[in-house]
């Protein structure tokens, strides 16, 4: 028997699934007592280079409301050529094509190692991918040039048959016609007027009559479009002093969505929005054009002072939903020093599975490389993106689905699998993900509905089937089916087993997602309190302690890291808005709710490596005590990569030792973290902000704000010590946090 660690890892590698509990409590009552719900992180399109798709259609259960897919868990009667559905127990005959089936001649989907299998189905016409660029022209000249370069570059990355379109906007919105020769033609809409009604109709009629007008196969218009992009000018309307440029982002998006809606509904399409500032006019306006009125801050929002917030949010939500309904995703690439209204616009991407990228300027590698990353290809040379995904979850009858958290929208499919208890986006067992990548990960929350008085027989197993239909980037329609099973365990007699089946990493991320999901709609302190309470209850449930004796408190190995995750989560930008703009918060949360477990953990608790002459690079505690003068630290927070040279190292570097031949080793030491950082930079999407700083440098704040403030100006004993660096903060340290936690956990009143 392998350890749970290995089991979990194996399951993740094979199925892309991480459960909070790998043994399931057998009754509803017990399940609720476990505090952390039975739930999982599911990565629908986890890259499986070793899994070749099969070229036929899946076999479905014939029961109308089941339609589960034949899987290794099904009982098969090879002689009768029938199989029993493991969800509804319906007996189904095999289709004629399975006539030759036998014990030794089994189809792939019946083999245990194919708990995840992918089918390629021939259904409907294959439509090419669509990329619609929506470009803000109210940019600084440099930015615009850089952006133009990036866009032109991206054309070369698109498959030749992909359809492309271009919308530019500033004070006006221009939809460029790509087909015409000679003269560049575009349709112009005024940026202040929502065109949901007639005008779009006109455009739409125009577009349906000549679908080729605005969206053209790239191979046909490559040159044209390259020229067009090359001639793109900054928005020519004068911007008076003291004003922001008028930017009609809302209308531009509305037009884009309307255009695709009218011409290519339910086809894989990406609307890629490039903005260099906040929308300042028309529907979706986030801030007025008066510079003297700054864009809303968290402070304004809390004071209910953000004039345009609600209206704009509502507008973008409606737009996002429309787009989602048509299966088109919207990316937002926002590069500006100030906020650009991501808070209001985030739902566009969140609902449609689009990317959000935030940077300071289009003229940075952060943007260019991230943008390139969008078009990265897998080992088959296909884009790492898929469209029009629909995830359906089927469960054993003891389980029901509460909801999902991730880049998806509900399809409102009510059915026997749907719980009344909603967590995340609930009330359905089907979700739509207009666009997804191999790393897109949903948090799925389940509920054990088995009643306490109807115990499940020993050795009973529960099963869950994830059916993901999507359009592959090579335009094939595919269905990926993952069927997993876990044992039921009686929580009273087997609590130890259940405890040891706890996946604290997955649990931390799943709980964090719940927290973030709540934070979107609730006050920050409430969410923190809720998280704290969950943590305390968990500790009470599983900790070993004597009542009212904090010092006796112990947690088993499988839970030992969980409180620490929670500690860092509380300090994270996902739940703390202090020091972050609303846009940044939205950006961080956006990525947090879609990345896989590893990345999510990094986000919660950044990784810190130390490089020194004392030994090989090693991970060190994310603690102020790790900050030492003779070390180089590399911190990865997912969004930032910080290389921090300790005081001594920095002095050496200033003295130029690395240039001296006799100090080659120092040069290598300096280089080591940079190499590692580069490795991360190359693979990470979106590309993190790369920060190279040193002791006392202003950018060191990125590191100092993340580490556990074990030494601050407040705890005297830290002063003057050689190890670590004091952090000037009033935040509690992990130590204090743990002390409180223990106290509360052992308290009978809590």
């Amino acid at each position: 028997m392998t350890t749970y660690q290995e089991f979990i890892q194996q399951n993740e590698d094979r199925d892309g699934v991480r459960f909070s509990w790998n043994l399931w409590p057998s009754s509803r009552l017990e399940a609720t007592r476990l505090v952390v719900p039975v739930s999982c992180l599911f990565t629908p399109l986890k890259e499986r280079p070793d899994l070749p798709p099969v070229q036929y259609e899946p076999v479905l259960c014939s029961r109308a409301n089941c339609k589960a897919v034949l899987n290794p868990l099904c009982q098969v009667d090879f002689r009768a050529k029938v199989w029993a559905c493991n969800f509804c127990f319906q007996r189904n005959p095999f289709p004629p094509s399975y006539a030759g089936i036998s014990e030794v001649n089994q189809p792939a989907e019946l083999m245990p190692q194919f708990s995840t299998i992918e089918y390629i189905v021939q259904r409907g016409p294959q439509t090419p991918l669509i990329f619609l660029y929506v470009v803000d022209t109210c940019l600084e000249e440099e930015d615009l040039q850089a952006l133009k370069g990036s866009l032109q570059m991206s054309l070369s990355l698109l498959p030749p048959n992909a359809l492309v379109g271009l919308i530019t906007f500033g004070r006006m919105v221009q939809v460029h016609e790509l087909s015409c020769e000679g003269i560049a033609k575009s349709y112009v809409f005024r940026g202040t007027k929502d065109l949901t009604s007639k005008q779009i109709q006109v455009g739409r009629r125009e577009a349906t009559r000549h679908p080729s007008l605005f969206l053209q196969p790239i191979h046909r218009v490559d040159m044209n479009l390259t020229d067009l992009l090359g001639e793109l000018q900054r928005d020519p309307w004068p911007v008076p002093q003291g004003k922001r440029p008028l930017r009609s982002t809302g209308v531009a998006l509305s037009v884009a969505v309307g255009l695709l809606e009218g011409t290519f509904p339910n086809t894989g399409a990406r609307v890629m929005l490039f903005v260099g500032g906040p929308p300042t006019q028309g529907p979706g306006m986030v801030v007025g054009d008066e510079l003297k009125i700054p864009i809303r801050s968290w402070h304004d929002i809390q004071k209910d002072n953000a004039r345009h917030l609600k209206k704009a949010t509502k507008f973008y939500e409606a737009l996002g939903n429309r787009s989602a309904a048509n299966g088109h995703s919207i990316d937002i690439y926002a590069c500006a020093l100030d906020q650009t209204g991501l808070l209001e616009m985030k739902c566009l991407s969140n609902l449609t599975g689009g990317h959000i990228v935030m940077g300071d300027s289009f003229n940075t590698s952060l943007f260019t490389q991230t943008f390139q990353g969008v078009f990265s290809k897998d080992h088959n040379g296909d884009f790492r993106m898929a469209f029009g995904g629909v995830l359906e979850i089927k469960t054993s009858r003891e389980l029901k689905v509460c909801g999902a958290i991730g880049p998806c929208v509900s399809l409102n499919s009510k059915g026997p699998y749907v719980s009344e208890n909603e967590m995340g986006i609930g009330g359905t067992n089907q979700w739509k993900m207009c666009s997804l990548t191999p790393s897109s990960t949903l948090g799925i929350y389940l509920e054990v509905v088995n009643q306490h008085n109807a115990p499940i027989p020993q050795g009973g197993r529960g099963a869950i089937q994830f059916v993901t239909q999507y359009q592959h980037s090579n335009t094939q329609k595919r269905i990926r089916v993952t069927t997993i099973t876990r044992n039921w365990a009686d929580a009273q007699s087997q609590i130890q087993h259940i405890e040891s089946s706890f996946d604290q990493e997955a649990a931390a991320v799943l709980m964090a997602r719940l927290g973030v999901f709540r934070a979107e709609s609730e006050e920050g302190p409430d969410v923190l309190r809720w998280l704290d309470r969950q943590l305390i209850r968990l500790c009470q449930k599983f900790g070993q302690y004597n009542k009212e004796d904090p010092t006796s408190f112990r947690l088993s190995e499988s839970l030992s890291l969980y409180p620490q995750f929670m500690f860092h989560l509380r300090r994270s930008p996902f739940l703390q808005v202090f020091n972050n703009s609303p846009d940044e918060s939205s950006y961080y949360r956006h990525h947090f709710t879609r990345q896989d477990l590893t990345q999510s953990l990094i986000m919660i608790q950044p990784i810190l490596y130390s490089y020194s002459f004392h030994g090989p690079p090693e991970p060190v505690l994310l603690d102020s005590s790790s900050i030492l003068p003779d070390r180089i630290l590399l911190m990865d927070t997912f969004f930032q990569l910080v290389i921090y040279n300790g005081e001594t190292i920095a002095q050496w570097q200033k003295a130029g030792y690395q240039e001296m031949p006799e100090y080659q080793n120092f040069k290598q030491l300096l280089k080591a973290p940079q190499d590692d950082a580069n490795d991360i930079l190359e693979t990470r999407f979106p590309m993190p902000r790369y920060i190279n700083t040193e002791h006392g440098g202003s950018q060191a704040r990125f590191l100092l704000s993340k580490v556990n403030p074990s030494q601050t100006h407040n705890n005297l004993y830290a002063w003057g010590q050689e190890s670590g660096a004091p952090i000037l903060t009033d935040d509690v340290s992990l130590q204090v946090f743990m002390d409180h936690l223990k106290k509360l956990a052992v308290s009978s009143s809590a």
Partner: protein
Amino acid sequence: MNVNQHTPMAPPYGQPQPSYGQPGYGQPTYAPLDSGYPAPYAPHNGPASAYHPGIPPQAPPPSSQPPTSHYSAQPQPSYSQSHPPASSAPSQLPPSSAPAGSQQYYPSSAPPSQQPISSLPPTSQQRFVSPGQPQHTFPPSSTSYAGPAPPPTQPASTPVTQTQPPFHPHQPPFSSAPGGQPPAFTTGPPPPAQGSFPPQAPPPSSQPGSFPPPSSVSSGQYPSSMPPPQQPPQSQPPTYHPGPPPPQAQMPPTSIGQSNHQPPGPQGPPSPTGPLQQPPLQQGMQTGAFGQPRSPQPGYGGPYQGQPNYGAPAPTPQAQKRLDPDAIPSPQASDMPPVQKSRHRIDPDAIPSPIQVIEDDKAKTTEPFTTGVRGQAPPLVTTNFQVKDQGNASPRFVRCTAYNMPCTADMAKQSQVPLAAVIKPLAILPPDETPPYLVDHGEGGPIRCNRCKAYMCPYMQFIEGGRRFQCSFCSCVTEVPPHYFQHLDHTGRRVDCYDRPELSLGSYEFLATVDYCKNNKIPQPPAYIFLIDVSYNAVKSGLVSIICQELKSLLDHLPRENPEMDSVIRVGFVTYNKVLHFYNVKSSLAQPQMLVVSDVSDMFVPLLDGFLVNVNDSRQVIESLLDQIPEMFADTRETETVFGPVIQAGLEALKAADCAGKLFVFHTSLPIAEAPGKLKNREDKKLIGTDKEKSLFQPQAGFYNNLAKECVTQGCCVDLFLFPNQYVDVATLGVVPVSTGGSVYKYTYFQAESDQERFLNDLRRDVQKPVGFDAVMRVRTSTGIRATDFFGSFFMNNTTDVELAGLDCDKAITVEFKHDDKLSEETGALMQCAVLYTSCSGQRRLRIHNMAVNCCSQLADLYRNCETDTIINFLSKYAFRGVLNNPTKAVRDTLVNQCAQILACYRKNCASPSSAGQLILPECMKLLPVYLNCVLKSDVLLPGADVSLDDRAYLRQLISCMDVAETHVFFYPRLLPLVKLESGALPVAVRDSEERLSKGGVYLLETGLHLFLWVGASVQQELLLNIFGTPSFGQIDSSMTSLPVLENPISQRLREIIDSFRAQRSRYMKLILVKQEDRAELMFKHFLVEDKSASGGASYVDFLCHMHKEIRQLLS
């Protein structure tokens, strides 16, 4: 008018006459007349009948009244007068003295009295016959008459004979006396003529009696023939004689004579031919023409009949004597014979002839016209003359209806003569006259009166040694700024008076300072935006390619101040159908970019930079664009268009660029696409003639009115080129152009081959012509009068400021003045028209025109110094605006009424006493009836069945900004016989009547809008060869729009003439070839305004009769 031609008619009529005679006439005279009409002339009579319903019917004639009316028809009167005298000859002669003033047409009234039928006729005839011709006519006529008319006329005959003798003598005089007399008036002169004629000069002397010399001369009074006829003669003589008589007399006579003779026999049937031939003759000299030649004209015959009566009254002679001045006729008395004929109709040659007046004026004008003399009327617009600015604005800039204004409101009201000025502020002067100087008064801006803000001008009085000046408009005293101070000389004038245009000239310009600019900002250079309809119709007709092709070269000729420099005007391009396409033609682009705006409900401009560009900078891109536009839309299927948003788009573009400018809109169809300003088809001919007719002239909805207002605020002038294939509602589409100082051009059923030239020439001229933008015009007047009403293409927000988004060199504004106090004869009346505008180079300027006229306390002075052409300009604009709010019939009635009052007032107050039956016209206004008739007959006021609503609305709008020269030729087209082309000088025009056309001739007719070349059916082969290069009438291609280029003097000269005509007009005239008896002739005949028109308009003669009747009613 009339007259006797009928004699000839007699034969044909003969029959009828008898009948009449019997019935009606017992009173023979009348009867015959009537009879005349019916038969051959019937057609013509038509109109006549209209006027005098009673008349035609022979029956009426009998009644005393009818006769009057007929006679009143006066036609003859004038002549008759002269002639009548003839009858009375002896007596008349004396009267002849009555030179001047009023020529009397006829003594219509008399007739009744003249029971002696026989006698009557003669008189009338005489009159007509009067001039030389008579003789010829008579003889033949007499004979002829004898035949036909015999029964009734006989009596007349006797007189005739009598008359004849006199005639002969007369004739000589006439001939000799080249004097213009010939015309109707001749009558007048005749009397004296015989004696006096030769010496026409005498007239003056005679005049003295009645009118001041000049006036007398000018005013030809047509004594009504009637008994009074004789009287009239007196007055008439002088005037008429002057010009024409001599040559004419001869010419016509002969021909006439012949014609007359012949007519009798043949004419009857071939009435048409007869007239035609005659015309030529007549053309030569109406004077001579009077009686005889005309005779041919069937139509007239009728009316004149009355005249005969006049002749009868021997008594008249006596009267005439009294009238001496005017009474010319006496000599003609001899005409007796013709008289008989005359009964039938009034001799067209006997009534005032526009051609005669025009020619007289030309002959009279030999010196440059100097503007220094207050109260002096300038030469007519038809005369070529040079102007010397001596302190009053040149008549090219300002023309007044009256150069002697009545001192009091009562006088003005009594006379009913409109007091108005037609101002053409930016008129182009001929090369030999200096354009207005530009004066810069420095930073302080132009020096102005402190109170009324009048600008410095020659009328300002400097006082206190030059330290102050007194405003002659409001009498306020203003300090002279130190930098402007100058000492005065001993006469009280500044010593630098002649160095400064503003102190010595009538017209000049000031450089405006920033205070005169909108928002106190120096204006940006203006912009021209071309908005081209690219819907199916426009593309299919080839219009789009034509425009694009033309623009390529046209853009190099945008207006500029300095011919050496490039124009600073920027250009932009838009095409549209149901949506609008803007073009980015920024110079840095390799290719133009098209920006489509489909949201027409709330128009906006999609781009700023690159839309309006400098032509030279963006030449490549623009050319590329213009090449591509026709291709891009070659396959369009879009038929619907918008219009409101198109103008909005241009307006928004100008707003965005913060400049004034002009939009050139090329549009083809009724804008029915869903958009603001959408129109519905409301063409409903059933409304014509009803009280709702006015609604057809009113714009649909208020959208365009509001839009126009916005345009004016921005200085956005709109020129509209229409190419409709059906109803497009010009009344509505034209609102914006008309309110913004723009123009509407209309090319119905545009076809590339035949209309291209006209369109392109119009476009070229329209784009290139000098123009000012964002203009405000204000007319200041001296105390006592006030500018109360304005007519033209502009917008007014208040009652004083005329706002013009654009003002080009062809636009005229008519301003009406009213009294608000007494004027004094010493100071006269002053007016100053100041136009503040932005020049095409973006400079803000003020153009000032000063005008001073005399004030008079005698009505006679008023009548002696007025200008009929200008009055007609005013009356037509007034009437054409009136149809917006009143039933058309009411407007017509008002016009007739006012005209009658004007003439009646003259008759009552200024003319020497005479019989009420005499029609006496002031010399200066003797053409008022004929011109007014033309106005009344215009398509706007009296549409024919084939005149579309659009055409009426179009003409209505067009007239509103015409200057005097344009209205003149528009209402009274110029008809040139193409004879003696080799000589170099233009042939003398002939009157607009079919009977003036000779079958063997070729004629050119121009109206300012149309140009016809009429070819007679039996024209000489040689002429055909010379002009068309073909020997046969049948081979002439009537669809040709330009003449073949042939290397012979006639062809060359003709083409030169055509070119020069075109050059004179603001719009290019397409040449339309009309072959006699071709279908197209109907259209051509429409412009023969002296004839009865197909739409029911009266002939000149009939109208004159009618007018006389009206006057008589007013007098009684």
